[in-house]
C-alpha cells in the first residue's frame, strides 16, 4: 500500500514558513482571488499556546468575566423627546493578531484579565474566528462582547468590543491600522510583526489607546512613527 505522507510533512521548513512572509496585502492586491484556507490541514487548538506554561489539559475553569456590561438601558418614554441618558460602556476590550495556526502575534488588553484568562480568550477567539468563511459576516458574538475581525493573508486581526458599539467603524479601524503597518514596514508580512514586536506596540499605542481610537490619520501616525524611528 502506498501511503502518502501528510502534506505538511512533505514541506521543507522554508516552505512551511513561507506563509509567514506572505504580504498581508496580497489579498488586497487581487481582490478577486479566493482567500487561501486551511485546505484540510487543521492545527489542533492546543498549538495556540506558544510556550512552556503547560496548563491542565482539557479541563480548566472559565474565569468569571463579570457582567459589567451590557448595563440595562434606562427606560425610554417614546416620542416625547424626554429620553434618558445612555449609559452603556462602549470600548475596545482587547486587540489580537493571530495567525491561522493560532499563534498570537500581538495581544493588547484594555481590561484586566489574569494570565490564564488571557490564554483562554486567545484560544477561544481563534476557535471562533477561524471556522468562518468569506460568506460570513466579519462580526461574531463572543461571550458578552463581540469580535470584529478581518483576515489578511494568514493573519487574523481581531478587535473585541462591546455589543452596542459600531461594527463597521472598527472593521475599518482594522484596515486603517493594517495600512499603516504596511506603509511603515514597507509591505508588511507576519515575520515583521514577530521580530519588530516592540515597534508594533508603538504603532498600536499611536492609533488605539485606553480602549479607544486615538488617531485615524495615516499621515499623522506615519509622520510620528518616522520621527520616533529617527531617535533610535
Amino acid at each position, binding site marked *: 500500500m*502506498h501511503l502518502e505522507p501528510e502534506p505538511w510533512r512533505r514541506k521543507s*521548513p522554508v516552505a*512551511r*514558513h513561507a506563509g*509567514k512572509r506572505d504580504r498581508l496585502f496580497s489579498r488586497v492586491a487581487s481582490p478577486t482571488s479566493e482567500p487561501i484556507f486551511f485546505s484540510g490541514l487543521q492545527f489542533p487548538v492546543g*498549538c495556540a499556546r*506558544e*510556550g512552556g*506554561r503547560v496548563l*491542565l489539559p*482539557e*479541563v480548566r*475553569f472559565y*474565569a*468569571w468575566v*463579570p*457582567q459589567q456590561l*451590557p448595563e*440595562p*438601558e434606562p427606560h425610554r418614554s*417614546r*416620542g416625547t423627546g*424626554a*429620553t434618558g*441618558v*445612555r*449609559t452603556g*460602556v462602549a470600548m475596545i476590550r482587547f486587540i489580537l493578531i493571530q495567525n491561522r495556526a493560532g499563534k498570537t502575534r500581538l495581544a493588547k488588553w484594555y481590561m484586566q484579565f489574569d494570565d*490564564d*484568562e488571557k490564554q483562554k480568550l486567545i484560544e477561544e477567539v481563534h476557535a471562533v474566528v477561524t471556522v468562518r468563511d468569506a460568506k*460570513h*459576516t466579519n*462580526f461574531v458574538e463572543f461571550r*458578552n462582547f463581540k469580535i470584529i475581525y478581518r483576515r489578511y493573508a494568514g493573519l487574523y486581526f481581531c478587535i473585541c468590543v462591546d*455589543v*452596542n458599539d*459600531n*461594527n*463597521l*467603524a472598527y472593521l*475599518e*479601524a482594522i*484596515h486603517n491600522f493594517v495600512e499603516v503597518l504596511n506603509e511603515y514596514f514597507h509591505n508588511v508580512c507576519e*515575520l515583521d510583526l514577530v*521580530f519588530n*514586536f*516592540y515597534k508594533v*506596540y508603538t504603532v498600536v*499605542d499611536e492609533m488605539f*489607546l*485606553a*480602549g479607544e*481610537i*486615538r488617531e*485615524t490619520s495615516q*499621515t499623522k501616525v506615519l509622520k510620528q512613527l518616522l*520621527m*520616533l524611528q529617527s*531617535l*533610535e
Partner: protein
Amino acid sequence: MVPVGRGMPFIPSVLAVVGAGAARMSRDTPWCLEAFYLIPPGTHANEGIQVGRGKSKEAEIKRINKELANIRSKFKGDRALDGYSKKKYVCKLLFIFLLGHDIDFGHMEAVNLLSSNRYTEKQIGYLFISVLVNSNSELIRLINNAIKNDLASRNPTFMGLALHCIANVGSREMAEAFAGEIPRILVAGDTMDSVKQSAALCLLRLYRTSPDLVPMGDWTSRVVHLLNDQHLGVVTAATSLITTLAQKNPEEFKTSVSLAVSRLSRIVTSASTDLQDYTYYFVPAPWLSVKLLRLLQCYPPPDPAVRGRLTECLEAILNKAQEPPKSKKVQHSNAKNAVLFEAISLVIHHDSEPNLLVRACNQLGQFLQHRETNLRYLALESMCTLASSEFSHEAVKTHIETVINAPQTERDVSVRQRAVDLLYAMCDRSNAQQIVAEMLSYLETADYSIREEIVLKVAILAEKYAVDYTWYVDTILNLIRIAGDYVSEEVWYRVIQIVINRDDVQGYAAKTVFEALQASACHENLVKVGGYILGEFGNLIAGDPRSSPLTQFHLLHSKFHLCSVPTRALLLSTYIKFVNLFPEVKGTIQDVLRSDSQLKNADVELQQRAVEYLRLSTVASTDILATVLEEMPPFPERESSILAKLKKKKGPSTVTDLEEAKRERSADVNGGPEPAPASTSAVSTPSPSADLLGLGAAPPAPAGPPPSSGGLLVDVFSDSPSAAAPLAPGSEDNFARFVCKNNGVLFENQLLQIGLKSEFRQNLGRMFIFYGNKTSTQFLNFTPTLICSDDLQANLSLQTKPVDPAVDGGAQVQQAVNIECVSDFTEAPVLNIQFRYGGTFQNVSVKLPITLNKFFQPTEMASQDFFQRWKQLSNPQQEVQSIFKAKHPMDTEVTKAKIIGFGSALLEEVDPNPANFVGAGIIHTRTAQIGCLLRLEPNLQAQMYRLTLRTSRETVSQRLCELLSEQF
C-alpha cells in the same frame, strides 16, 4: 511504504521561526534580537534550522533557559551594563515572555531604563512595564517617579511614553499619583497636540478604573472646548473622553451637545477633500463622526435651534447613502455606512422625528437585499430597534417578505438569528399568524444553537397575539411536536396555565391533546401536557365514544412506561383524578396502582404516590374525593415565566429594550418555577417537589387547596399533629446563621430561650437542645415536638425522648436528639413547643437547623484530582450555579471561615485566580456518599458572588447551593 522520515515537530516551534529568522536576518531581525537568533558559533545556519526541526519543544525550552541564564549572569555581573546592553537584554526578556515563557527577573533593569535619556531605551523600559505589570509596591514607587519626571520633562516624546504607560497600566496607584496632573496637561495652552490626545485618553482610562480619584473641576469646561480644536486627532480623543464623562455627569457636559453638533455639521458638509489627512477613502473623518454621534446619544434631543442643525446633518448623512459611491472599494462603503448606522442609532435614540425614522427604515430595507453579508446583518439588527418605535413599526413591517426569506437563505447563522429576532420584533396582531407559522416552519431546519430561543419566541408570540385560543393550543402542540427537546418546562407550564384560566378553550384542548397523543411516537412533553389536561378536562370529551374514559386512560397508560419518573408521577396524579371524574374506571385504575410495578417501585416518589392514591381511592367517600380533586383554581395573572426565561437567555439588554416597548401588561418578573413559600412547613403537607404547578405534590394539595378544605385534609391524614404555630418571626435569619456553625442561641423571647449544641460525624449527629425558662414562674405541660414532613421523614431520622413537662422558673432543661441522615434532604424539621405559662397557652415554632451540609466530611485533594473530578461531574444537572449580591462585607478571611464552617475542605492553589475559593467534601448519608465540589468567585467591583456546585446528585447540588448562597 514511503518512510516518513524523521518526525517533524507537530507544533511549529519557536526555534523553527528562529531558524527562518536567522536565514533572513539581513532584513528582518532587529538589533536587539540578533544575538538571540544567532546560532551557536561555529555552526552553519542550516544546522540551526535542523535543531529546530528535530528537537521541538524541549529544544526550545533548553535554548530559552540558556538565554535566560545568560541574561541573568549579565544582570548579576560585576561590570555595570551600559544602556544599550541593558536595553537589549530587557528586550530579549520581553520577547521570551511574549513567546509564552514566565519571566521572574529583569523588572529592576527595566525600571532603570526609564531614567535613560535615550528614546529607544526608555521605550523598551516602558513597554516592559506595560506588558509585565507587577504590583510590587517598591517598584511602583520607582516607576511612578520616572513617569513623574517624564511628565515634567516638557519633551513631547517622553511625555507621550509616560502617558501611554499610565493608560496601559491604569492601576489605582497611578490614578492616585497622576489624576491631578493629567487634566492640567490636557488643558494647558502650550501642550503639543499629540500629547493632548494621549492625555485625554489617559484620563479616560483613569476615570474608568478609579472614578472617585478623578474629581470634576474647572478643567471640565475647557475639555468640552477641545471639540472645537483645530487638530482633528485631538477632537477624536477628546470626544471619547467627553462621552464617557457625560454618561456619568450629564449636567456638567451639557454644553458639549451644541459643540458636537456644529463640529459634526462641518464634517458632514465638507467636500471630500477638505479634511485631507482625515479623509478615509473619500469619507470625511468617519471615526470622528461616529464618535460625535455617539456622544449625542448621551442626551435627549437638543433645543430647537441646535436640533434643526442636527436634523440637517442627519438628513445629509441619509442623502449621502443614496448618492452613487465615490469609490468601488469596500473601505469606502464601510466607512460611509459606519456613519450612517450610527446616525440611525441616534435617530432611534431620539425617537422623535417620524420622518427620519421612516427614511432610516427605507434605507435599511435596501440593505436587506445587499450583496454584502455585513450590511444585511447590520440592517436586520438596526431594524429590530426601529420596530419598537411606534413611528417606524409600520414601515418595518413592509419588509416582512424579505425578512421571512432570510432564515432560509442566509449562510451565516448569526444573520439567520438576527432575522428571527427581527421577525419577533416586528410581530403584532396583524401578522402574528404568518410570522408564527414561518418561525415554526423554520424551526424544523434551524440550527441547534438557536432552537431553544426560537421555541421561546414562538411560545411568547403565540400567547401574546392569540385572538383565538384554539390557535394558541395548536401552535404550542406543534411546537412540542417539532422541537419537543427544546421546549422547556416554562413553556408547557404556561400552556397549562392558560388552558386552566380560559374555560372557552378547555374542551378544544382536551380534544386536541387526545388526538395528538394517538401518534405512535410522541414527545414526553406532550405526554405531560396531555396527562395534565385530560386529568383536568377529560370529562369534557368523555361523551364521545371515541374518547371514552377507558380509552383515555389506556391511551395515557400506553405511554407510561416510556416516560421518566417526573412524568410518571404526573400521570399517577392524572389517574387519581380519573377516579374522581369517571367512577366507572376506578377498578381498572386501582388494579394498575396495586400492581407491583407501582406499589413496590424503586422510586420513592412513585411508590408513595401509588400507595397514597390507592388508599385515597379506597377510603375516601365520593364527596371527599370530589373536594380533594376539585378542578384547579385559575392561576393568578403574572408575567409570563417564558418571557423571564428569554430575558435571562439573551442577557438583560438585548431583550429588555424590546420588551419595554412591546410590553402590554406590566408586572414584576415573578421568577420561574419556584415552590410555594414556606407556609407549608407548618402543616405536614409534603412540599411540592419544585414544579410550578404543584404537580409533584401529594394528592390532597395539588396547588394549595382552598382553606375550606383544610379540615378535610386533617380527617384523611389524622396522624398529622394538631395545629402548630406558624414559624416565629426571625427564625429564618437565625436558621441561616446556623448553617455554618453548630452552637448558639436559636430562639429567644421574654419567656423562653432555646440554645443548641450539636456535633456531626459522617451521617450521624447528636443535638442538644436547651430550653431555658427566663421567668420566675413554672412552665406547665411543656411539650417540645419535632415535626417532619413526610418527605423529610423518609430522608432524615430523628429520635428523641420527651422532656419533663414542668420547667421551673429560671431553670434549664435539656433534650438530646439523635440524628441520622438517610438520604439527602432539603427541608428542615420544625421544632414546635407548647406550654402553659400562668394562665395562657404558649405555642412557638422554629425551624431546627439540621441541614444537609452538616453531614459534610472535608476532603483534601490536589489540583489535578480536583479537575479530574470536576470534569467527571460535567452533566448539566449536576451543576448548579447562582450569582448573587453580597449581603455582607466581602472579606476573604471571613469567607474562608464560612466555607470551612460549611463543612467542606478549602483547597488552596487549585483555582488559577487566587481571589476565588474552591472546596471539596463528601456528604454522608446512610444510603450513599455524595462527592461535592464547590467554587466561589467573588467580584469585589460589582459586590457580587458567583457560586458553582457540582455534585453527583442534582438535588444535593441544588440544596447546597441554596444554603451556601445565603451565607455571604
